[in-house]
């Protein structure tokens, strides 16, 4: 076990970098962070469309969100893999393919988290903001979202946990994220798959469990500070 770690820990953490492309756990984290970061504005836009008073915005957003949420991520990855090159005419890297899939997928989930956060605020907040003469968008920006985003923080962290686990599907497009690297190591060593995949599982667990606990702690702290407003739990 120890020699396994000794031999392969650098490969496991960063792939072939700096002699080749970045991979391993570093790539997993980079992909998850970048995915969530880019999905954030998309999710926000769709959430706003979803709660807006205008049907022409509400319905398309609802259609997109329900379609994506009703689809396995693997299928979104396939779409990204085959669709993007045929649309752009340029061969897309595995990283970009997976990133695009994650952004679309997480965008839809974030939209639902944000919608719940916005609708979880007391109705009086929007009403009093509008009564002052603020427009719907101004009321959202200055009154509703600053509060809703704070209450959503635990859910956002939990979504990050989901995203980390989702990156493992990069395996199917041969993206050298940490699961793919683990399978490579296993193929080289040949005889010790249980230990290698055990270490991989442990790595995911430590990361995700730690983040989940952090989210839980934040949730408790927010609830203590402001018991009147419910904290958003993931849908």
């Amino acid at each position, binding site marked *: 076990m120890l020699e396994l770690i000794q031999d392969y820990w650098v490969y496991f953490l960063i792939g072939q970098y700096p002699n080749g492309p970045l991979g391993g756990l570093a790539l997993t984290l980079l992909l998850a962070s970048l995915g969530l970061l880019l999905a954030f504005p998309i999710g926000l836009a769709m959430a706003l469309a979803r709660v807006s008073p205008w049907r022409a915005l509400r319905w398309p957003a609802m259609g997109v969100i329900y379609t994506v949420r009703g689809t396995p991520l693997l299928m979104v990855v396939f779409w990204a893999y085959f669709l993007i090159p045929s649309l752009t005419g340029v061969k897309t890297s595995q990283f970009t393919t997976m990133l695009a899939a994650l952004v679309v997928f997480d965008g839809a989930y974030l939209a639902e988290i944000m919608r719940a956060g916005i609708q979880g605020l*007391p109705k*009086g*907040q929007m*009403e*009093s*903001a*509008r*009564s*002052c*003469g*603020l*427009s719907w968008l*101004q009321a959202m920006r*200055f*009154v509703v979202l*600053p*509060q809703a985003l*704070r209450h959503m923080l635990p859910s956002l962290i939990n979504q990050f946990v989901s995203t980390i686990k989702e990156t493992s599907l990069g395996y199917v497009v041969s993206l050298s994220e940490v699961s793919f690297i683990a399978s490579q190591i296993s193929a080289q060593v040949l005889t010790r798959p249980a230990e290698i995949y055990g270490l991989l599982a442990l790595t995911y667990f430590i990361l995700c469990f730690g983040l989940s606990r952090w989210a839980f702690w934040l949730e408790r702290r927010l609830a203590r500070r*402001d018991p009147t*407003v419910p904290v958003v739990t993931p849908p």
Partner: protein
Amino acid sequence: MIKLEAVNKWFGDYQALVDINESVAKGEVVVICGPSGSGKSTLIRTLNRLEPIQSGRIMIDGQDIHAPGLDINEFRSHIGFVFQQFNLFPHLSALGNCTLAPTQIRRLKPAEARERAMALLDRVGLAHKANAMPSELSGGQQQRVAIARALAMQPPLMLFDEPTSALDPEMVGEVLLVMRDLARDGMTMVCVTHEMGFAREVADHVLFMDAGKVLERATPDDFFNRPQHPRAQQFLADIRSPFDAQR
């Protein structure tokens, strides 16, 4: 200043306002009272279009508030509205609550908005709480900040929707005093309230509502001493504490 012509409103099958014809003159203080569910809050919420109406016309300052092309935000910025639940913005300080709309809508410079807000907080007796967050204020203090917030837009008209109903009894007085001072300064006010003492002392007219209809419009003196409508007589008898009966 306010004129309602044949205003009707339904919630589904339920008619919440029935053929309301009323007017409020500039500088007048009108108190709306009546049993719960009588449509008082609904009525006052139609005045700044928080509730839509199904028929009739509401004119404020000669302007039909449902006219197509009306800038609803501009229109609302000239009407102060005070809620039963205060609805302060909990992520902003008392001062921040009072400067948000003036800086965003009136494009006031921050220093100017702050100065105006401080003067108003002083007027409601809370200048020393300017930097407190709403959660650090008592209910009465929150409601006074909410009044200052509404006044920060310098509206010629103030609407109060049961401003003291969510308050502990010992905090009702401080809010009513602020409202009385406002009335004495000549503010046009419409107040939905159960505070009959306030109505008696401050109101120019009392509207009595039941089942979506205005049943009586009278001066406080007439309303409390010589109510005409049987339902109003009943209401006044019912709100009198049974323990005061012998007095």
